[in-house]
């Protein structure tokens, strides 16, 4: 639990940022015992008070670290994949009537100082979804050659299917308003959900905005996508985007 004494005497910092709107920070984690502690510290330092860690069936000390940190957390008894974990966060946000939700990955790649940029367009009703993109301005951690080629290819496919360019369709650093939360709480893929969610949301008429962010290299652990898995990743993502594009928007 967030220490009560930290709060006493001063209003929670989110108040000054977005008025009375409630923001939930959803942090999906899977075996991130080393990076989750510093991330929670950074988020609190940034003034985010409503954190929800979704522990996706970790087998290491992640749950213990999160429990000791005192933030709210949900522990899934069985590993679902990052999409299933984030969707649990959407359901929590919907049940508790949050106005906005931000996904921040538990591996420390997403810099909490960008959250403010990410949620600013939402209360002004400029967008329903805001994606933090590495490629609007090419700065920071840009990943290796073959991975960049894959991302370039996904850019091409999503442009083709969505009818408009999305520079960073694989980025999970996103903010959502309550309308988007309600939709995604029922419609979100279990694994590698980010690119196909763009297609399904555009089809539903949601407004997507990209803002530049700088991502950091991983603080610990390894990317879940490497080697043969990256081929499966591309195959799966492209097929599910095509199928999403074929789906009728009224379903």
């Amino acid at each position, binding site marked *: *639990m967030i220490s*009560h004494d930290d*709060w006493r005497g001063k*209003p*929670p910092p*989110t*108040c000054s940022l977005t008025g*009375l709107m*409630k923001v939930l920070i959803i942090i999906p984690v899977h075996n991130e015992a080393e990076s989750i502690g510093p991330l929670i510290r950074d988020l609190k330092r940034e003034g985010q*008070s*409503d954190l929800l860690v*979704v522990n996706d069936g970790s087998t290491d000390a992640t749950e213990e670290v999160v429990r000791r940190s005192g933030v*709210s*957390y*949900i*522990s*899934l*008894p*069985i590993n*679902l994949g990052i999409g*299933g974990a984030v*969707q*649990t966060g959407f*359901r*929590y946000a919907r*049940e*508790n*009537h*949050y106005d906005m939700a931000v996904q921040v990955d538990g591996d420390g790649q997403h810099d909490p100082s960008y959250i403010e940029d990410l949620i600013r367009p939402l209360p002004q009703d400029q967008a329903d979804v805001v994606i933090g993109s590495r490629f609007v301005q090419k700065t920071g951690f840009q990943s290796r050659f073959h991975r960049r080629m894959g991302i370039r290819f996904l850019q091409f496919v999503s442009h083709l299917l969505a009818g408009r360019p999305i520079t960073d369709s694989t980025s999970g650093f996103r903010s959502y308003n309550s309308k988007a939360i309600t939709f995604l709480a029922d419609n979100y893929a*279990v694994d590698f959900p980010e690119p196909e969610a763009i297609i399904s949301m555009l089809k539903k008429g949601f407004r997507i905005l990209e803002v530049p962010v700088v991502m950091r290299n991983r603080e610990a652990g390894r990317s879940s996508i490497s080697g043969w898995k990256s081929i499966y990743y591309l195959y799966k993502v492209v097929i599910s985007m095509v199928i999403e594009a074929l789906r009728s928007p009224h379903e």
Partner: protein
Amino acid sequence: MNKIAIVSAIASIASLVVIVVLTRQRKIREQYALIWLAMGFLILVFSLFKRLLDLTARLFGIYYAPSLLIVLGIFFGLVLGIHLTVVISRLAENNKRLIQEIGLLKNRVEHLEKSRLPEASGDSPGDRCARGPCADADRSRVVIEGGG
């Protein structure tokens, strides 16, 4: 009636019996038994009436009638495989929902338990309400439920 007809008739009757017995024991649900029963019946009919098999084979342009049985077998295997994929996908979706729901419920139970304990340690509900409208809904809801 030649030997192969008798053998295949016996085999299909045996498989029908097995399906019925398994369904009776509730090891197979009725809805999933239907496809197996239809398949067993069809093979039984074709093995009992060889002329029907020849006629159907000629209809499809198959010169060697018994190969119709093989084609049918492969076709049924495919249909069954697709059917099972549909069933598994539905189960996986249900499973995901249940896992998520368990996580959400566990979180809620822990909140409720915590909201009971601090009352003893002097953290009164009034103290929490003083935190104003920005205190998150979950906390305030817990206060309402815990206090009520």
